[in-house]
């Protein structure tokens, strides 16, 4: 019984730590994005609130919480109010299977540094990342606005197209690791990271991940200059903040997943494992911001063409070749 209670307490502590780190990192990722993007565009970025604008995320959060929470007339009230929670919730839940260190031993107990080591962790990740689109589509639909609806529909179509490439690009990784558990996949990369043997998979997964987290050049669901703000156009205050938060947590989760599947997860010399994972997440985020600062938004047909005609065939071919290599 006491073991059981201790287990619950340890789990709660892990949950709290991960949640706090994720949310803090998300808010400072916004700061990092604004700052880094500004430098890419020869600007300063936020530099008024605190040194280097470091208090800007806090000021933004205070502003968002203090703002009025409006629901448009004729909106589907319940769905409208719930949709942001789906986006933020699924994005946060996805981190539940990401390992951030090897097992540690405390008071004679082995504590795995992962919230939950599910043996089908990879499927869990895909299930949640598919569920996230419900938040986008339902939010767009419930807003009772043409532009929101267009954004929501685009979001759904984009997710369906890129989910396939995302899943197929990971099949070779599973073939190498011989497991769907993220812990096992990281452990399989002890000697070398999978990016060395699966560079094509890495590129496909990276592109699909950017599309999944709705970032430029794949930000059609929220394309500012066509749709206003797309699916979250009618949202205000912290509900808009939740969409925003979900997007940045999503960015982190995909950074973490890229690290786990291709860059060796928490493996790394000298520094503690969780710092390595954090560094990899931040490095991937910086590359994503660099891409945002360089590439323009794709046209809708181009987006679909890349997804269906380039990424999926390339991923399938990659699976074939990897299978052949593994057999021989």
């Amino acid at each position: 019984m006491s073991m059981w209670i201790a287990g619950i307490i340890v789990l709660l502590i892990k949950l709290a730590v991960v949640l706090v780190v994720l949310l803090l990192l998300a808010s400072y990722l916004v700061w990092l994005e604004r700052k880094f993007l500004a430098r890419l565009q020869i600007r300063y970025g936020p530099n008024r609130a605190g040194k280097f604008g470091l208090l800007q995320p806090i000021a933004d959060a205070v502003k968002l919480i203090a703002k009025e929470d409006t629901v448009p007339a004729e909106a589907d009230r319940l769905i409208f109010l719930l949709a942001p929670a789906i986006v933020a919730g699924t994005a946060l839940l996805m981190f539940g299977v990401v390992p951030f260190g090897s097992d540690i031993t405390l008071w004679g107990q082995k504590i795995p540094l992962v919230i939950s080591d599910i043996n089908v962790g990879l499927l869990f990740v895909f299930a949640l990342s598919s569920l996230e689109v419900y938040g986008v589509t339902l939010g767009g639909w419930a807003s009772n606005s043409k532009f929101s609806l267009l954004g929501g529909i685009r979001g759904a179509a984009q997710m369906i197209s890129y989910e396939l490439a995302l899943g197929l690009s990971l099949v070779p990784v599973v073939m190498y690791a011989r497991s769907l558990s993220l812990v096992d996949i990281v452990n399989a990369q002890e000697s070398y990271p999978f990016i060395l043997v699966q560079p094509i998979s890495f590129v496909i997964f990276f592109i699909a991940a950017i599309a999944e987290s709705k970032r430029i050049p794949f930000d059609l669901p929220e394309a500012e200059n066509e749709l206003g703000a797309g699916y979250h156009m009618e949202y205000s205050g912290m509900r808009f903040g939740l969409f925003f938060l979900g997007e940045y947590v999503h960015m982190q989760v995909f950074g973490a997943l890229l690290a786990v599947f291709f860059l060796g997860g928490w493996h790394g010399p000298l520094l503690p494992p969780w710092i390595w994972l954090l560094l990899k997440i931040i490095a991937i985020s910086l590359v994503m911001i660099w891409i945002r600062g360089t590439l323009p938004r794709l046209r809708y047909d181009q987006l679909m063409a890349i997804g269906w005609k380039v990424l999926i065939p390339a991923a399938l071919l990659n699976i074939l070749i990897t299978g052949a290599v593994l057999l021989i």
Partner: protein
Amino acid sequence: MNSVWEAITALAAGFALTFKHLFRKPITEQYPEFKRPLPARSRARIILTRDPDGAERCVACYLCSAACPVSCISMQSAEREDGRRYAAWFRINFARCIYCGLCEEACPTSAIQLTPDFENCRRDILTLVYEKEDLLVDHCGKDTQYNFYTYAGIVTGEGGKGTHVKEDEPVDVKSNMP
């Protein structure tokens, strides 16, 4: 194959350019610390100027008030002992002013002028209503030479052309050829 290579080099060029920008000094002018010198004719806070002799230029003709698209100028004309007009009171509601400059264009005496001073935010909107003493300045503004009354007007009961107080003789347009 050629187009694929082209696409790759084009992408690489773009990424290289943004990466180079990372090490450039930002071109932002940081406003409260650095104030860009504005052109003399930029349009902001309105003033009432005086002529080179130091007298008020405004003759309270109401043209600015009539030209104003948002009706933010109001005044009351009055007459001095010598028969010349002036504004008994003159009021501009800057909370309503859109700084279009039409009053300046309409003014026959160059009295009302816009200045580049744009930092006129107030917490209390009522403090943005400027009276004549707030608007009147001690210089000629942009037009340093112009003195409305020195130009010969029309024949009136007071006298003929060029005989009014401090009025120049009328210009003979035939001798004014280049």
